[in-house]
């Protein structure tokens, strides 16, 4: 019995894209053309969805996989779950595996919720007896008690997703592959799913987890792999992986800009922000803000012409896309000068209300009678905050005091 749950050694996976014959109508003429020696009219290109990816997961560990769209994440999971085979390389799975690739994939629209529980359970590899034992728990988890005898086609998409997740979550796998499914349902149900995942993790199963919701990856997986263009570009601590991932996204965006933005007419906009610096209290440039200290942003605001009552806006969002707040100079009561020229602008976030994490800051310049957006930074700046772990999205800052002793009261007297 090895202590590795999953071992992947240099797997490669190739897909075809482009036009290839997928009907006799196209195949037969092309075959004839080939017979008389003319090259058939087809253009098939091949691309590698996975290139030489290797990793191992210890039993009971969890691994996150993140990466831009098309990086090969889902291909990796499909490979691990035996849906597709690698062209090269080997992998080994030690344990009973189940995959949550698309919840409710096996639902049949005409069958009732209960019948679908049995069908889907069987597809996921459960025996009838297993399912019977868990039926109540599944219905309860999915919260579809009233509709359990209704055909699934009359379910709302949320109900369908909840039922699908509930079935899959109640199997007893030793290894669980999860692809993006924790984003189903409303916030309350998502929360329930994440808590359930934590419970599964505590029970000692191995989890491979794909998500674009970085906070979920952070909370579920200590280790994370970053895939980009089918290659494993980073494997290590999740915080470092997320930084690497954001870097990859930035590079991709810059490359995209270079490729597609190049032939735009270079009309200089009326305003521009450059030289964004994050500073500490002493004014030294830093890469990350320290929790509990003021956060300072400095930037150069260049006005090429008066725009009329200009203001700088900094929009704060978490890297997972949750909008937090906006720092707007004029709105906060600090009007900026409207003379053409370059002005050094400083914003001090005091107290800084952000807990440790990664944030994305979007810079914009507004101005004019209609308060239009004069200029927007093509891509947000990324910023880390360290040293103040807290739950939630807002750093809770304040004081607690014990005021004075309260005369002891016996519970019995009150009743």
């Amino acid at each position, binding site marked *: 019995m090895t202590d590795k749950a999953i071992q992947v050694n240099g797997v490669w996976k190739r897909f075809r894209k482009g036009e290839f014959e997928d*009907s006799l109508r196209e195949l037969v003429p092309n075959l004839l053309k080939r017979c008389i020696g003319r090259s058939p009219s087809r253009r098939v290109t091949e691309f590698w969805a996975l290139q030489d990816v290797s990793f191992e997961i210890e039993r009971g560990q969890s691994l996150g996989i993140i990466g831009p769209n098309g990086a090969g994440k889902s291909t990796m999971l499909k490979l691990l779950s035996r849906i597709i085979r690698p062209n090269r390389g080997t992998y080994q799975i030690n344990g009973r595996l189940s995959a949550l690739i698309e919840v409710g994939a096996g639902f*049949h629209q005409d069958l009732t919720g209960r019948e679908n529980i049995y069908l889907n359970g069987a597809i996921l590899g459960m025996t009838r007896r297993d399912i019977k034992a868990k039926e109540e728990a599944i219905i309860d988890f999915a919260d579809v008690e009233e509709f359990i005898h209704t055909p699934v086609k009359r379910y709302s998409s949320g109900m369908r997703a909840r039922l699908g997740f509930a079935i899959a979550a109640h199997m007893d796998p030793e290894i669980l592959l999860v692809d993006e499914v924790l984003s189903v349902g409303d916030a309350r149900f998502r929360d329930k799913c994440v808590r359930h995942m934590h419970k599964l993790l505590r029970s000692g199963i191995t989890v491979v987890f794909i998500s674009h919701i970085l906070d979920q990856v952070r909370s579920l997986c200590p280790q994370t792999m970053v895939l980009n263009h089918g290659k494993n570009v980073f494997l290590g601590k999740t915080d470092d992986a997320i930084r690497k991932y954001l870097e990859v996204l930035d590079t991709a965006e810059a490359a995209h800009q270079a490729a597609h933005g190049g032939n735009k007419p270079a009309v200089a906009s009326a305003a521009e922000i450059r030289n964004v610096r994050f500073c500490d209290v002493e004014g030294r440039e830093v890469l990350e803000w320290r929790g509990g200290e003021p956060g300072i942003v400095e930037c150069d605001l260049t006005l090429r012409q008066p725009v009329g009552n200009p203001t700088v806006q900094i929009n704060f969002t978490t890297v997972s896309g949750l909008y937090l707040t906006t720092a707007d100079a004029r709105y906060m009561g600090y009007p900026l000068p409207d003379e053409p020229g370059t002005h050094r602008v400083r914003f001090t976030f005091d107290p800084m209300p952000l807990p440790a994490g990664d944030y994305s800051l979007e810079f914009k310049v507004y101005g004019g009678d209609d308060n239009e957006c004069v200029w927007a930074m093509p891509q947000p700046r990324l910023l880390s905050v360290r040293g103040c772990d807290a739950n939630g999205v807002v750093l809770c800052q304040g004081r607690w005091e014990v005021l004075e002793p309260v005369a002891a009261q016996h519970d019995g007297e009150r009743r």
Partner: protein
Amino acid sequence: MGTAVLPIVKEVVDYKELLLALTYRDIRVKYKQAVMGMLWAFFLPVMGILAGVVVQVGLAFMKQEPLQLANVVSVMVRMAPYALFITILSQTANGLLAGMGLASKIYFPRQIIPLSSTLSAIFDFLISGSILALLLLLIPQSPLVWSWSLLLIPLLLVLLAAQGLGLGLIFGSANLFLRDVKYILGMLVQFGIFFTPVLLFVDQLGELGQWMLWNPLAPLLEAIAGIVIHGGVAPTMWPWLAYSAAVAVVLMAAGMIVFRKTEHLFAEVM
């Protein structure tokens, strides 16, 4: 071949719950939805039998002879197995396309899909077959002849099912990669009955009937009708039955090989 077949069978045994669940699903969906319920199972055979009766009445009229009950029974006895063949063929071929949506999302042994299609087709046949058997026992002056050769019928049905499944696997697999194969299959299903001795029998077609025996279904249907009505298989039919059995083995083997060779690509073409 033996080494190739063993793992296929083992996987099916491991996933027998799924095989049963999918079969149950097919049956349940078919019978639940339709207002006619169980009528579905013999709707196709009954329509076929009525068509056969029309043909036989026409033939009797032209020959200036009365319609013989034995001929009507013969049509009935041929129609049920023929419907079994067509149902297996089309359900296997189409079920493969439908099942692949599932197979590209969840892993399970892919052979479960055609097997469950076949099982649900057999379920249909069991219903229509039992009704047919009941009719043969109950109608007055039934031409049914009791003989030991009746025991041969299950074996003939197995050969017929193997032909349907083998052909279904070939068409189904091809259809995943060449999307217009299903039109060819549709034509086979639609017009096949004219090239098979179901409505008209080999001995009613003279020279043409002899040619029709090359259709591997024909000897099986002729033999089944012969056993039920005449109490045995005509001696001239035995070589044809051997031919039919050989075709069944070849089709089944070819179907399995095609399926085995292409199944790992299924999830990628979807």
